């Protein structure tokens, strides 16, 4: 059966045979880098058109329908347009920070990609603190956003950045706690171990109500963390024009835009890994024959299927709910999500200690 793992071993063996180890490692770096960039570009194109189509269908419209069959090449045309545009730096802006900010945001998105398991035995970096690494690195992106907002020398940008800061700092807690509740069950921070622990069923189903609660909290909190509607206060078109990236144009704007979608992909990938078993096919307990049939679907398809399901869920939120006010946003986090996820964590610990899960 085709698997990406055999492909990577093949490449590695061949490289190590032909070149000295140091050079082979260098080549592997290059290959990984190219693959990551290719993934980013592909994701950007796919997610943008997906978002626009989902939005259109939910709002009973047709959506983009001019470029290519059914408008499927619209995002490619948009990209070409953005590349051609001038990347303007305003006169009053802090030039260095202004130009650095999009790259920081992008770099964070790239770094978070490292420990994610895309398929069986197919990940960039198998570290034993994968989940911790992801939650640590992803909070750096708020620095990029603050930098963008502050250096723009524009009140809208600054307001957007400040809102974004408040939002990310508070919602990170709920994300952390809901992630912890799965860590309690698996007893490991390694993403591979977490996936393997779902061999006989996904945690969402195995760990009863606490898992479902923490899944819901996780989805809400990551929606807020990626600055997506209904939590898009930092962009809030109707109030702040475009929030922290008001002053950006051309490719620098595109980087922010891309980073937003990459972040959605990443948080959904993490969500899929923790709650829906990552690349693990759909297994039910000890039904050997059923599990065997499911194993025939390649693992990377499982991974992308689950991730895109979660992405669709988040898009569905965006086009359904109205935007919150700042006070409502903080109320929701500190008065509801955080206490609930704390209680939920205790329940989950009880479940884990007593072994009530399957």
């Amino acid at each position, binding site marked *: 059966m085709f698997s990406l793992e055999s492909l990577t071993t093949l490449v590695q063996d061949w490289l190590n045979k032909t070149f000295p180890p140091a050079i082979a490692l260098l080549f592997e770096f290059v290959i990984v880098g190219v693959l990551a960039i290719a993934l980013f570009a592909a994701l950007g194109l796919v997610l943008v058109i997906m978002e626009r189509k989902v939005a259109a*269908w939910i*709002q*009973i*419209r047709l959506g983009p329908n001019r470029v290519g069959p059914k408008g499927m090449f619209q995002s490619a045309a948009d990209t070409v347009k953005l590349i051609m545009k001038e990347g303007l730096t305003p006169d009053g802006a802090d030039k260095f920070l202004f130009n650095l900010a999009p790259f920081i945001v992008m770099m964070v998105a790239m770094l978070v990609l490292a420990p994610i398991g895309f398929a069986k035995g197919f990940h960039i970096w198998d570290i034993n603190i994968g989940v911790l690494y992801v939650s640590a690195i992803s909070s750096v992106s708020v620095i990029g956003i603050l930098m963008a907002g502050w250096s723009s020398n524009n009140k809208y940008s600054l307001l957007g950045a400040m809102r974004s800061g408040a939002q990310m700092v508070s919602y990170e807690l709920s994300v952390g706690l809901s992630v912890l509740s799965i860590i309690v069950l698996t007893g490991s921070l390694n993403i591979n171990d977490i996936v393997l622990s779902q061999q006989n069923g996904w945690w969402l189903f195995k760990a009863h109500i606490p898992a479902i609660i923490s899944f819901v909290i996780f989805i809400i909190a990551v929606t807020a963390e990626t600055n997506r509607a209904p939590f898009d206060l930092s962009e809030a078109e109707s109030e702040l024009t475009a929030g922290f990236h008001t002053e950006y144009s051309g490719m620098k704007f595109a980087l922010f835009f891309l980073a937003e979608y990459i972040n959605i992909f990443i948080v959904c990938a993490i969500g899929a890994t923790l709650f829906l078993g990552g690349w693990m096919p759909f297994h039910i307990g000890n039904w050997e024959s059923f599990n065997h049939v499911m194993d025939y679907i390649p693992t990377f398809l499982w991974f992308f299927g689950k991730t895109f399901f979660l992405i669709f869920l988040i898009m569905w939120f965006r086009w*359904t709910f109205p935007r919150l006010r700042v006070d409502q946003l903080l109320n929701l986090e500190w008065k509801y999500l955080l206490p609930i996820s704390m209680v939920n964590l205790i329940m989950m610990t009880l479940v884990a200690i007593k072994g009530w899960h399957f």
Partner: protein
Amino acid sequence: MFIVDYLKEVYGAVKSLLVGMNRTGYYFTHHKEIITQQYPDNREELNLPERFRGEVVMAHDENNEHACTGCSACELACPNGTIKIINKFDISPEGKKKKAIDTFVYHLELCTMCGLCVEACPTNAINMANTFEHSVFNRGLLTKRLNNPDSKLKAGVE
């Protein structure tokens, strides 16, 4: 009890969110009905809603008569000075002077299609038309005269 209220609130919130998602999910899965007009593909058979506001027009009947008394209520109601009423004085058969409309100037380029003038008119002389293809090459063409030349006030309209 505080905790009961709290849980009730959470339950209500989750429920209302699910109702909303159910609605949009329904729209998403029933993609047959499209409410937007596929303009300009369907330019021939455009199907605009009755209350669509394209521009202000003044209705004239077959005798070239309108219902505008020249009272200037629309001019006063317009928030952005789109309308200018120029009046003249007719001499009635009894020899009395009577105010009447001379020119109803309408600056389409200023109009925001708010419809306040139509609301304000006491005699329903003006209304909003459905036409919306207003592009022209010369800005002067956007300043329109709404009352036809030689038109006059309908009898019986005060």
